[in-house]
């Protein structure tokens, strides 16, 4: 019995090695950053960092789902931008109107993903080229909504969502304006960090354990085998893209709260899409599909952003930053690939 358990443990360890590695790299960089920051390990720094990473983390999660299926979604940045411009119109007014705005924005993100899924499944167009085209359409719609940057977002809402829990209580008058003694141990937690945990635990985890979620993995490992096993392929594909659109939509809403405006910025959308792919790869998900988790992508995105944080601290010439980021990205993927040099049978290279 003990023997079996030991081998189980080693299998689990081996399977989650990429995830553990990326978490370790993140912790290393982040602790290093905080210990060199003049106000390191303080709530203010956590809040600022959490705000800076949230949108990218969401877009990286959005990218993970299609990648697990062996596809790629080039429209995640565009979906995020579309929801960003929509939210900049809707997130104001009475509390009821704001709730309505949130629901409409989340549904819009999911709908964009659903459209992607339908084009891929029923149009039988390759995901990469289908989402390239739908991405252009979403970007066009975003430009209709916000030809020039701007927006009107409820001030209190934007303030509390991008701060710690104390500010929620203080702004809306909960828990003796946030001064209640029992509340203090958690009052410092940044809202975006909590939102991230909520999304990961209550959206990603249930999905990845459902039949549909397992089917997404199965499609990435071998679509014909998944089909032969009677798995609901079409449904899983549409669900994967829809979930991706939902995550991108959450990122778009947050970007709106963070900047209090909507901005249909094409280069920015492109940068988010490309960084999302990088985050997914750093997070240990195989671009060939079937292997990886959205949790890994979260940390992949965190690693990417933490590297930029460190540049700020060490006062590195801003002109050199893009070069360093590029070298880190290229280095990260190359190190992961060095194992191919040890393969003895060349045929093993071709999957």
């Amino acid at each position: 019995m003990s023997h079996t358990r030991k081998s189980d443990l080693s299998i689990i360890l081996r399977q989650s090695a990429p995830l553990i590695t990326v978490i370790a790299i993140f912790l290393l960089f982040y602790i290093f950053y905080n210990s060199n920051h003049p106000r390191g390990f303080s709530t203010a720094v956590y809040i600022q960092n959490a705000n800076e990473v949230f949108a990218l983390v969401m877009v990286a999660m959005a990218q993970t789902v299609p990648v697990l299926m062996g596809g790629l979604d080039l429209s995640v940045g565009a979906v995020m931008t579309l929801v960003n411009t929509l939210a900049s119109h809707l997130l104001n007014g009475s509390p009821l109107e704001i709730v309505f705005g949130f629901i409409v924005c989340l549904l819009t993100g999911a709908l964009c993903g659903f459209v992607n899924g339908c084009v891929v499944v029923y149009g039988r167009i390759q995901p990469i080229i289908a989402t390239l085209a739908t991405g252009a359409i979403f970007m066009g719609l975003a430009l209709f909504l916000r030809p020039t940057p701007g927006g009107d977002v409820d001030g209190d809402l934007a303030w509390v969502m991008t701060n710690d829990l104390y500010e929620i209580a203080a702004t809306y008058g909960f828990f003796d304006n946030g001064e209640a003694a029992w509340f203090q141990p958690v009052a410092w937690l940044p809202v975006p960090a909590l939102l991230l945990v909520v999304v990961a635990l209550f959206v990603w985890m249930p999905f990845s354990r459902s039949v549909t979620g397992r089917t997404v993995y199965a499609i990435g490992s071998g679509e014909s085998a998944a089909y032969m096993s009677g798995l609901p392929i079409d449904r899983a594909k549409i669900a994967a893209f829809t979930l991706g659109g939902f995550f991108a939509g959450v990122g778009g809403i947050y970007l709106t709260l963070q900047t209090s405006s909507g901005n249909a910025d094409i280069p920015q959308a492109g940068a988010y899409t490309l960084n999302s792919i990088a985050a997914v790869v750093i997070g240990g998900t195989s671009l060939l599909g079937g292997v990886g988790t959205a949790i890994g992508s979260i940390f992949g995105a965190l690693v990417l952003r933490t590297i930029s944080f460190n540049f700020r601290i060490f006062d590195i010439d801003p002109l050199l930053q893009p070069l360093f980021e590029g070298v880190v990205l290229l280095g990260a993927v190359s190190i992961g690939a060095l194992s191919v040099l040890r393969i003895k049978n060349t045929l093993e290279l071709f999957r």
Partner: protein
Amino acid sequence: MTTTDTMPKAKSRLWTPENKPVVIASGCIVVILAIGTAYTLATQGTATLLSPGYMLQQLQVGSFLGIVAAGMMLVILLGHIDLSVPWTVAASAMMATAFGGAAALPVGLSVGLAVGLVNGLGVAYLRIPSMIFTLGVNAVMRGLMVAYTGGFAPQTAATPLMQYLAVGKILGIPVALFVWAAVSVLVVFILRKTPVGRYIFAIGNRESAAYLAGAPTRWVIVFAFGLCGMMAGLSGTLLAGYSTKAYQGMGDAYLLPAIAAVVIGGTHILGGRGRYLGTLVGVILIVLLNSVLSIMQMPEAGRQVIYGSVIILMLLFYDRGRQERQ
């Protein structure tokens, strides 16, 4: 071929699966021209689009995209993709203007070739998915250029030769068109008449089979990526000649249209199938679509929507890919 024998002869020549995308794309070009001409006739009373001078001018602008697309097609036929095009174009243009003089053109081409070779080595020998490796190379090239230029457009100007190649005219026909034609002949020659061309199709269909059949698969991949980089470099050098100088982000507008042109032309995005004529028609379609939309003074929002819709609608009409599960 036996299936086509039962069809009427004229139709069978046109409606082979291989020809279908080219025919549809050509039809689409006619429709775009008709809509654009109807618009100009209604608003200005002239058929601007159909005048030879205007056509040549549009094709001249399109030749930069055409050269990039030619290289991109080689890589896509392999089943790979080159996302490093934007900063390969910009880096070649910047280096070419920086060196200037007689060295400008060779330097521009060499920069492109060097980037392409790095891409090829990473993809062929490290087996890193081309999508992510070329993306990283693009980021590194961007970093190098930002560090080199200080984030501003370099002050150096294009040499007279570069300007001549981009905007000069021989017998009223832009020189850039001749460059594009030369590149096209080269690509068609490689794909049809050389072993490398056959290997490219073979690798795109099934790399392990090509390897077992004795094809030097790694070398072919490096070759295709190198050529793709060199074409991006050539395009960048010409583009610098066209606008008399190099600037940041000058290549950004070429990546996605180049991929779109190749795919609209019927080349399968997963490799192995496609013909150069299709890519040529695809480039012309995208260039004309852009120019008709500018004549109509379509705002950017509408352009993006139309652009995306056209790609999807055209692909829906094509042979929509054999079902991958068999």
